[in-house]
């Protein structure tokens, strides 16, 4: 049977992708950001996952205002990196485990999570940046070392799904994955955050104390984290900090008791606090 071995929480700042794509990760500004992923890349190699279930949000790239699904599951064979206005990232297309994705889609709806099924979808930095930071540089003509099942969450138009809903969706995703008959090693990613506000006069807001508490809750009290209100996210972590509800989907798919094997926090990457955590399911 397929099994979720671990969860990864990770920011997906677009400038991090640009830094990797333009080869400036050694510069003073970027060094401390990437330093924190050194251990993660070694860990990823050791884990050698067959499939990554990757929770992220689209930034008005694949989805425009015509259609705004709250949860959209990628079920197509592959997903091309999108042109977000400055050309597509020079990274490989993302390949799906299509059979497993279909199984998950069916299982989720029968478990009363009425997701949208995407058979055609381009993916933006929200999905490719976490893969890049965790796997390191992969050439455009190469291949990502794992298959990826994308789950795209609306966090752009208010309201995003509640933390509680996300946490419970994580549990349903786990049931779906772990009822799939092939023996597969699966890692789930929750991406986005941490505190940041990209817009209007309060842009640049960072709340490190809050972010660090959130990382603590990820390890120690996920149910507590799932009860954080939208107002608290918006006020305390900036209008775009609400992306952190996506970490709760990842957390819901893990055991209540987990082992934190790595944590990284750095300010700034462009406008954003970079947060990262690796949680292993206790046997």
């Amino acid at each position, binding site marked *: 049977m397929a099994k979720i071995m671990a969860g990864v929480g990770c920011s997906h700042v677009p400038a991090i992708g640009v830094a990797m794509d333009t080869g400036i990760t050694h510069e003073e500004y970027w060094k401390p950001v990437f330093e924190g992923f050194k251990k993660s890349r070694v860990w990823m190699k050791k884990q050698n996952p067959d499939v990554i279930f990757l929770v992220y949000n689209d930034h008005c790239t694949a989805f425009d205002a015509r259609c705004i699904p709250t949860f959209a599951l990628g079920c197509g064979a592959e997903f091309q990196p999108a042109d977000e206005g400055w050309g597509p990232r020079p990274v490989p297309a993302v390949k799906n485990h299509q059979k497993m994705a279909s199984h998950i889609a069916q299982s989720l709806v029968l478990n009363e999570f009425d997701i949208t099924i995407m058979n055609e979808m381009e993916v933006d930095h929200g999905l490719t940046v976490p893969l890049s930071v965790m796997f390191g540089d992969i050439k455009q003509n190469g291949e990502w070392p794992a298959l990826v099942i994308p789950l795209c969450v609306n966090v752009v138009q208010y309201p995003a799904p509640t933390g509680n809903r996300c946490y419970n969706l994580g549990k349903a995703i786990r049931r779906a994955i772990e009822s799939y008959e092939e023996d597969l090693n699966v890692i789930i990613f929750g991406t986005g955050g941490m505190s940041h506000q990209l*817009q209007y006069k309060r842009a640049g807001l960072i709340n490190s104390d809050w972010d660090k508490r959130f990382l603590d809750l990820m390890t120690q009290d996920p149910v507590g984290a799932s009860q954080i209100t939208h107002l608290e996210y918006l006020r305390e972590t900036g209008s775009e900090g609400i992306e952190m509800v996506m970490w709760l989907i990842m957390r819901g798919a893990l055991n209540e008791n987990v082992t934190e094997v790595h944590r990284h926090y750095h300010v700034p990457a462009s406008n954003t606090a970079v947060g990262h955590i690796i949680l292993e399911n206790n046997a």
Partner: protein
Amino acid sequence: MTEKEYDKIPGTIVFDADKSREGYHLNQFCISLRLQKNRDAFNKNEEAYLDAYPMSKEQREAVLKREWNLLLELGGNIYYTSKLAANDGINFQNLAGRMTGMGVDSYREMMLKGGRSIEGNRDKSEWGED
């Protein structure tokens, strides 16, 4: 209109269903600039390109004048307006430098020092606003 709980947060426009409705055509114009062929057409003749999008006069003017904050007030969302900014060669950080009125250099400096503190930035009353 009834007051929303997040209206008290200073310097912040929450892109909710009302904003989304108001900004629909503006945002659809912005996202069209994601594609090179559309960027080329827009850059060749902005006014003619905008004719295809039935936005309000105010929104159209704000696009032409690149009034980044006004665009958000009129229903634009940052992930959309950033496509217009990208077309002008302005990245997210430089756009924030403009929207905050700080300018690019002092904004970048603030971020390097840990960003804008949450203290004094939770409630409009702290900004001397209602």
